[in-house]
């Protein structure tokens, strides 16, 4: 029970890689998006807000289908990417990371936006009056005070990415070692008669990954929050 088969290790490592890469790559965009939604007023803001949140309410399969249309080898953006850089998302782990990132994006943005909304704007005004430029205020006041939200957003995004199924299987299919993440492997096992024990093992593994992520996030968020609020 404690030793994992090579296929299981493959699926686990792939899931972790997809989760980490999707979070790392989408974090700057999520933060920028949260900042835009929290701080700026512009025409069409509610449209942007809606589009960002769309993956939260759409069936993941529809998201995967949309990605296929846009980023598939013959897709509108995908064909150009391949022609220009020889790069493709189609049927590899990068595609799985993109699918996860898109699905997880609204969760990350929401957490960061809430945290940005909670930053006391009067502290920023005080910093300006002390001679800090807008950029220095952003770097020394706004972002440090938003840190707990950024962390929460990143971990939520990671957890969502690791569990992503529908968009991934639709966009990049189920290829061992390339796109067969934990949920996909688990799904496959449930389709094969007599694989109950193996399915159990993967289900428990998924639970463990999620639990570790949540506990780590809780621990880190508390530490960061204390630091930010100045409680020793």
């Amino acid at each position: 029970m404690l030793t994992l088969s090579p296929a299981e290790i493959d699926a686990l490592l792939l899931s972790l890689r997809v989760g980490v890469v999707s979070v790392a790559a989408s974090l700057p965009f999520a933060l920028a998006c949260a900042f835009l939604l929290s701080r700026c007023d512009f025409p069409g803001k509610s449209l942007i807000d809606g589009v960002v949140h769309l993956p939260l309410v759409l069936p993941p399969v529809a998201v995967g289908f949309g990605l296929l249309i846009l980023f598939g080898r013959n897709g509108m953006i995908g064909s150009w990417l391949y022609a220009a850089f020889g790069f493709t998302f189609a049927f590899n782990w990068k595609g799985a990371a993109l699918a996860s990132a898109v699905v997880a994006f609204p969760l990350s943005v929401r957490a960061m936006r809430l945290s940005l909304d909670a930053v006391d704007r009067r502290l920023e005004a005080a910093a300006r009056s002390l001679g800090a430029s807008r950029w220095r205020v952003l770097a020394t006041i706004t972002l440090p005070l938003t840190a707990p939200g950024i962390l929460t957003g990143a971990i939520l995004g990671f957890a969502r990415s690791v569990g992503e199924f529908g968009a991934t299987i639709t966009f990049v299919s189920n290829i061992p070692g390339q796109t067969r993440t934990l949920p996909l492997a688990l799904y496959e096992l449930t389709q094969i008669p007599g694989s109950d024990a193996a399915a159990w093992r993967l289900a428990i593994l998924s639970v463990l990954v999620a639990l570790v992520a949540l506990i780590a996030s809780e621990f880190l968020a508390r530490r960061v929050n204390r630091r930010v609020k100045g409680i020793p």
Partner: protein
Amino acid sequence: MIEIAIEKRLGAFSLDARFAAPDSGITALFGRSGAGKTSLVNALAGLIRPDRGRIAVAGVPLFDSERGIDVPPEKRRLGYVFQEGRLFPHYSVRGNLLYGRKRAGDTDGPSFDTIVALLGIADLLERRPADLSGGEKQRVAIGRALLASPRLLLMDEPLASLDATRKAEILPFIERLRDELKLPVFYVSHEMDEIIRLADLLVLVDQGKIAAMGEVEDLTSRLDLWPLTGRYEAGAVIRTTLRGHDTSYGLSELAFPGGRLRVTRLELPLGTPLRVRIRARDVVIATERPTHLSIRNAFAGTIVEIQADRGPQVDLKLDIGTAERPVMLLARITLRAFQELQLAPGKQIFALVKTVSFDRHSFGRHIDNEVC
């Protein structure tokens, strides 16, 4: 000079303020909550942008709508002490103090050690703002603003969130800024106590406009301004010099042109210039010099002005000074007493003030030379 002439609409409220204040001493902006004091200071600091007008400090324009000048707040070099302190929670006290040092450079303005000593915060440097008391927070906030070496310090009700003990702890520090650092201060308040203690120049703000400006003594003795300076607490402020201590009775004597005021003993050196507020409701009027009376302060004077259109009470403005140096006092008596004594403008009277009617909030030091 600090010149302000700005207009700004904020919803239903409109600010239309124009005045010029000297760039020395403490200029107090006084008015009710919502009168526009904070908006005015925020416009000065560059935190809100006026619709129209001009702001200049020492001849340097900070805002000029006609010439398209709007210096961003970080380049205005104005220190700002906010009502709530606004210390950065994720920095230590030291980090907060040094935050604005970058702009100032290390050579400019008072040194870190000077300010820390002046404000008595040396023991707090490694603490976090969350561990400080309200009074400590405000002292750190003042130090932080000072260390950015501003050319003008703005203080927006810095004592409003503190209790009386903490207030008494901070007030001397503000006086020291004026006296030791020679830093001009704009002080926003709606507490007459603080104004009397600190202000050299008083600017009355009402409904977004400057209702009056002048010396504290002149404005508080104007009957027409009572609705703004506070009717119940109304009183005149007179300038005195501490001239004597009566140790056997525990009294002190304050001299002003026209007489000596006896108050309970003040632990201050002789010669100290003091402003004293005498509340109108603490003044008694007599038409002849009273005898067989416990009141020790009786001053001969004349009635200058009468305001009798406020129901059962009559407000009187009295001159108890000399021919060359008038000293205005306010008195509030009942309409009945007013009629029975047959008071009228120009009539000679005696104004009586109980020695024990003064408390420590009645006194403030002023920077001018001794008055007599």
